[in-house]
């Protein structure tokens, strides 16, 4: 079972997304802050980090930066989830963080499923 770390500060969004991913038989760890995500990353490994960009205190970008700066997590796969459509500058900044994909919310469930399958296989 592929393991996904899901990070989103909005509890309703987090719960819905977690249930969706679980219904597709992913092993989901859902956390509502970047800080908790860091803790989770220290404890275990994940096949994918699914990350909201706009979060208070430490943003998704900050968390992604932390992951990229951490030698042990260099190969960590990241997918951004964002509620704002990214402009050119935003895309450039995010590109530096080398995510595999970014998905604009609200997304189509089947579209997300296809993309996850492509990234995680199976």
């Amino acid at each position, binding site marked *: 079972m592929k393991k996904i770390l899901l990070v989103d500060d*909005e509890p*309703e*969004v987090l*719960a*819905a*997304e977690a*249930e*969706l991913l679980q*219904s*597709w038989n992913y092993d989901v760890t859902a956390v509502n802050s970047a800080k908790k995500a860091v803790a989770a990353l220290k404890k275990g490994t994940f096949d994918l980090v699914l990350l909201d960009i*706009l979060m208070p205190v430490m943003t998704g970008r900050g968390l992604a930066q932390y992951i990229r700066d951490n030698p042990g997590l260099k190969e960590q796969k990241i997918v951004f989830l964002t*509620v*704002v*459509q*990214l*402009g*050119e*500058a*935003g*895309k450039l900044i995010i590109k530096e963080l080398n995510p595999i994909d970014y998905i604009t*919310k*609200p*997304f*189509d*469930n*089947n579209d997300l499923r296809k993309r996850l399958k492509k990234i995680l296989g199976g």
Partner: protein
Amino acid sequence: MNMKEKMRKNEKKIDLEQRYDLLHAHPGILQVELGLDKFPKKLPKKLTLAAIRRIVKTITVVDANSATLRAFATFSIMELEKNFYRLFSPSKKTEGFLRAIVHHSRLFRLEIALQSLRGPIVHVLVCGYRTENKLLLIMVDITAQKREEELDAFDRRQRLVLESLEEKEAVARQLLRIMSHELKTPLTPIQVRLQMLRDGNLGSLNKKQQISVLSVIKNFDRFATLITNIVDASKLSRGALQLALEYEHLEVTIQQVITFVGPTLRKNRIKLILRLAKLPLLQFDADRLQQVFFNLLDNALSFTPKGGTITVTAKKMKNNILVCVQNTGESLHVDELERIFRPFYQVVATDTRKKGGTGLGLAICRGIVMQHGGKIWAEGLQRGGVKILFTLPCNTKKLRIGRREKK
């Protein structure tokens, strides 16, 4: 010419300049004596202007300067003497002032507005006092100062209005920024769960439940589009929409949208004719242009009768790509051709299969196309139907890119 003579000549010159200044910069003054035969022992009970006129026997201008005639808009001092009372409109203020002079033998001063003989109001500072047999009035034209004061006050008011407007705009901008996030956030969990219900992730539904969920999804989609449109329109209106430009094939973008509208086309037996020429690689925001195409096609679909035709063409014209979405059906009135691009404008169609919409679709199209450096316009077709055309420049180096959205 010796030194003394030279100096005298210079002095003369200065004198002339000073007189010129006097004429133009110095205020007009007017000193008037209102002669009374003898100060009446018994004053009329109500000292109105008319009553004062009755006790005044002579009016003599005793002093004036070069600016007086201009200030009071008169041809001569004689004329001014003759028509002296015309300056005073019988107002409480002037009457009260004259009454005060008549009653008390001391100096009074007042700023009043007088009606010059032919022309504008003249603001004067009047000093007046009474002796045994005359009233003496000295007036100084203060119109220029008054006007400056008024302008200052106007400036201040204007500044205040501007400041409050800026403040309001900042609040509105903040509100929209919050709204665009807060309004869009709940859409995600709703959509996720609705689609989970529909797709059976939460167990299979019976027929009735399925129909119900599909209806909720349809309405939710409409609602989500509405919110997205409002947020986009507001971003476009304040120049905050940022394009993500990349080199892409426009034909591919068009094809992607067409697959979206396929079911609606089949349902209404609408024929789609696609004439896409081979286009060069273009720099544009694919998501945003998809939105433009979707809006244009959606719009065309709403106004094409069953069995009608929609034609989409794209070709290169000089330095531009010209794209055209054309549909059969009713034509638009000439006035409407421009108006349809305004926010919240909605065409009232006689055959409205599809009602609703925000009236923002075409406004958003225009915003996006313009931000790409292109133009968009509509043409009515004589044989019926509407044609909406837009251009995209092939060279997009000089593009205006919107301000970065700050969070």
